[in-house]
């Protein structure tokens, strides 16, 4: 039975939490259970930011991520901070600028998320949605259509097209 | 300290949060934000007026002499 612990990370302001919400919501639309949580407090102000999602076909009892199956990191700082408790053999999806050593302990995917967002889309605020596209292409955790729906549900009015474009671009990066 | 020191504007990048306040209000456009941090781009123009130091919320820019930098 599917039970996946996911940690999404980046820097404050990159929309990491929204990304978690969209992912969890898509999972629910998919008919799965999902829980999303995040860190509050000083930790949440500036510096590395994270959102955690658990997706499961069955009941989710313990609501927190213990050992993530999947870590997504958009920045070096976030990667360094949050890699520590990845499950052995887990998946890491990181921006291609992130320098990663010891990559034999996990399955590594490096994707040019930030550069694509900044240089091609020229809209840094949609890096999270680009990342989501790449993330789901790799993990196939939820139905792509559901993710599109969830994105439309949650992004600010007037930015729908941009975000769908970003999502598709993310899929295309993998 | 009765030794008069020559002051100049100094930046502590580690503390600078790149808010741009010093840049915007420097009367002689000495400063610029680069990669999210302040940079002294036009040091000759600096009049040592101290406004950047007064307003910087992060104590990341100040007038100091060599003695201060130890």
């Amino acid at each position: 039975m599917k039970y996946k612990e996911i940690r999404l990370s980046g820097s404050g302001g990159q929309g990491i939490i929204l990304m978690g919400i969209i992912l969890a919501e898509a999972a629910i639309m998919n008919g799965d259970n999902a829980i999303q949580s995040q860190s509050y407090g000083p930790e949440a102000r500036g510096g590395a930011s994270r959102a955690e999602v658990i997706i499961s076909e069955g009941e989710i009892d313990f609501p927190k991520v213990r050992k993530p199956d999947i870590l997504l990191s958009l920045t070096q700082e976030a990667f360094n901070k949050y890699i520590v408790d990845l499950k052995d053999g887990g998946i890491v999806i990181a921006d291609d600028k992130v320098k990663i050593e010891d990559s034999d302990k996990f399955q590594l995917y490096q994707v040019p998320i930030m550069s694509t967002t900044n240089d091609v889309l020229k809209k840094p605020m949609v890096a999270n949605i680009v990342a989501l596209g790449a993330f789901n292409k790799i993990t196939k955790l939820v139905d792509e259509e559901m993710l599109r729906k969830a994105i439309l549900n949650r992004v600010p009015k007037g930015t729908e097209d941009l975000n769908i474009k970003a999502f598709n671009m993310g899929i295309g990066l993998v | 300290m009765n030794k008069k020191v020559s002051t100049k504007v100094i930046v502590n990048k580690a503390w600078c949060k790149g808010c741009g306040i010093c840049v915007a209000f420097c009367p002689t456009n000495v400063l610029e934000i680069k990669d999210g941090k302040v940079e002294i781009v036009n040091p000759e123009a600096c009049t040592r007026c101290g406004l950047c130091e007064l307003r910087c919320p992060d104590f990341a820019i100040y007038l100091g002499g060599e003695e201060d930098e130890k």
Partner: protein
Amino acid sequence: MASNLVEKYYRMDKLPHIWCAGCTHGTSMNAVVRAIDKLGYNQDEVCIVSGIGCSSRATGYMDFNTLHTTHGRALAFATGIKMANPKLKVIVITGDGDATAIGGNHFIHACRRNIDITTIVFNNNIYGMTGGQYSPTTPTSSLGTTAPYGNIDPVFNICNVAAAAGATYVARGTAYHTQALINSIVKGLENKGFSVIEAVSDCPTYFGRRNKIGDAVEMMKRLKELSVNVKAAEKLPPEKLEGKIIIGEIKNETRPEYTDEYQNLIDRLKEEEK
């Protein structure tokens, strides 16, 4: 790597502080330190008390006797400290929420007593720490997370309330007019009695962003543009002053100070004893 002033008066291992980029709490905190430095107080004799809020986090950084209390109560704690040891120079750093929402009662009573405490209110017109709810100084019609349709609450004029309640030195400054702010704090510290200095501040993260004012720089520009000196203001008609920030000295008066009066009582009883 920091200026002499910073190295002398701050706890270096606690810096950089947690405040957001462009948050002027740092500017105002430094104004307090500069005022203390001007007066040459011994750090051991200075006690700084704060409540709870982003502003109230200041005490953690400042190398004095520092007390970070409960929300709104800084002045009540400070009153106990000053009564117990009148030799201490007692300074309170507080926010608009801390001082005028939950702490409003302690604020007006400290004013009334005219106890020798200098209070600097970092007024950013919002509850910063909890994420941007409107405060008693949030301008009417502004947005806050608890005012999603625009705030219907009228605002306090902190300085006027302080003056009416009995504070003997009252002034307003802004983070933009830093030097003037420092001067006001110096005068407040010199006043033997209760002094209130309202330091109008910026919270770009919550107030600025939500109200689409722009970034820290835009907010600072606004402080500059909206400010009118109290002397100039006196000559302007009320409609011209709407939405303006009146800066400068609002009140400066002499009245007996509270701990002095208590000491007089003790001395009088001792006298009678003889």
